[in-house]
């Protein structure tokens, strides 16, 4: 039953034009970034590495496909929650605003099955978005710029990952990014059950993410106690997979927190939808 419901929900998602906005936007941005780096990547890179160049002699294919993919992931993953919220925030509220929720709930299917199918469909969409981002960026990056060691520039250090280790790290990073974005999926989905209007959960999700991100990036002591509790703090944990050695303790801790958020939001969603008055 769940499988059939999931198929229907996926059909609903992919029959709406707004669902393709994310894929198109990602493809366009990847094309723009790769074109810009192909044309003027050396200037950009020399600007980034000027501090290193002052003390060291750097040699090798630094501007390679893996670095381009990393830059794209780093730039676009911040925008991904918007694309996820655009679809997942509409899954229940969209049905509520159009009135189809009543039709759906009167069918001989449990509400729990409906919500599970919608949640799985939302997660599938998120996963496809992450695969699209990672896959397209990596494929075209390697085709245009060729593989090489990955130089990861952080604000306070540089990590150089051997080329042989990059592929599995990108794969795991995409998996971790999917878990991170699942928090956005479940959060916007949860808000969707509270509203009969699609705009509210989408905008509310983005507003919360923006507020949390700003708090997370500001180096103000008063925020330091709050930061560990914000899911946005842990959503960037995929970046730690490109450190050597990988801080597995922090990665695991962040993943546990993200999963806990997902479970929490899902429980609220189930409770809310099972109790939801669809007649009013």
């Amino acid at each position: 039953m769940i499988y059939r419901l999931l198929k229907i929900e996926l059909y609903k998602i992919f029959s709406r034009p707004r669902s393709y906005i994310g894929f198109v936007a990602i493809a366009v941005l990847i094309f723009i970034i790769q074109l810009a780096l192909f044309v003027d990547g050396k200037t950009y890179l020399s600007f980034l590495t000027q501090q290193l160049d002052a003390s060291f002699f750097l040699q090798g294919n630094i501007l390679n496909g893996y670095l381009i993919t990393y830059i794209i992931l780093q730039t676009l993953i911040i925008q991904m929650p918007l694309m996820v919220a655009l679809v997942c925030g509409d899954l229940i509220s969209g049905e509520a605003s159009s009135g189809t929720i009543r039709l759906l709930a009167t069918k001989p299917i449990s509400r729990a099955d409906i919500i599970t199918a919608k949640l799985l469909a939302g997660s599938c969409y998120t996963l496809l978005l992450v695969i699209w981002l990672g896959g397209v960026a990596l494929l075209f990056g390697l085709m245009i710029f060729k593989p090489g060691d990955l130089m990861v520039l952080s604000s306070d250090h540089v990590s150089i990952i051997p080329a042989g280790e990059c592929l599995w790290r990108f794969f795991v990073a995409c998996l971790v990014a999917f878990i991170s974005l699942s928090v956005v999926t479940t959060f916007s989905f949860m808000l969707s059950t509270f509203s009969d209007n699609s705009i509210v959960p989408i905008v509310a999700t983005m507003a919360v993410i923006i507020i949390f991100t700003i708090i997370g990036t500001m180096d103000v002591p008063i925020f330091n106690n709050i930061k560990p509790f914000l899911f946005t703090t842990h959503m960037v944990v995929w970046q730690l997979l490109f450190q050597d050695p990988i801080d597995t303790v922090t990665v695991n801790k962040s993943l546990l927190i993200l999963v806990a958020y997902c479970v929490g939001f899902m429980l609220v969603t189930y409770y809310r939808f099972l109790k939801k008055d669809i007649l009013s």
Partner: protein
Amino acid sequence: MRITFPFKPHPNPSLKERGIHSPKSNGLKLFHAFQKLFVSLFFFFAFHFSPFTSRAQTAAQIIDKVNHNFAKVNDYTADMNIHLDISFIKMKDITAKVFFKKPKKFKVKAEGIVVLPKQNPNYMMAMLQDTTSYNAIKTGTEIINDVTTTIISVIPNADTADLILGKFWVDANRGLILKSHLTTKSNGTLEIEHFYGSNSTYALPDKLIFTIETAKFKLPKALVADLSSNSSADDKTENKKGKITILFGDYLINKGIDDKIFK
């Protein structure tokens, strides 16, 4: 008031004044001459045949000896293993191949990214070979790894040179640099420890340890889209020292290298 009179010779000048020497004074003069000769011969033999011969060499002579060793090398290739111990660079050991050809052609080939000090391993040797471009002064001796070394300070003649002062601890007997201390305009102070093995006759080291001053590495978070790191107490440390250890192996010396490799 003191009145001075014009000089008047003594009415009875002495024998010496008249050019007549006594037999006693001639013997004394001869004795003094032999004494001088003996002392001179003693110092000559003492310096030239003692184990501390290097003390007698001038800075230029010692550098000539160093240059003489390296002058035997027309070209070489070697395998390199580079280990970085720099707080803000995290990377695994790198293996690379180094190519050198006289006078200054130098190339490192590796599959991945290579991080090396600005001054390549042959930087000093190339610099020391142009003896007209600097002044060398002996400034003392020091024992390094049970070897008595002569400290030679090198000051470039040109103001435009990147090197401000070079200090070399040289094993004068073997003509090998065991330690260098370079003060440069662009990179601050750089210390290099040299360890030699079977290729010491060519002045080619088996191991080099570069100790460099590293300024605090900081990039704007927005520029690198780094949302994961926060400033910590460690950030307050402005300058640190980092080490780069280079191990050389499988030297192929004077086997000929095609110029295409350096392009």
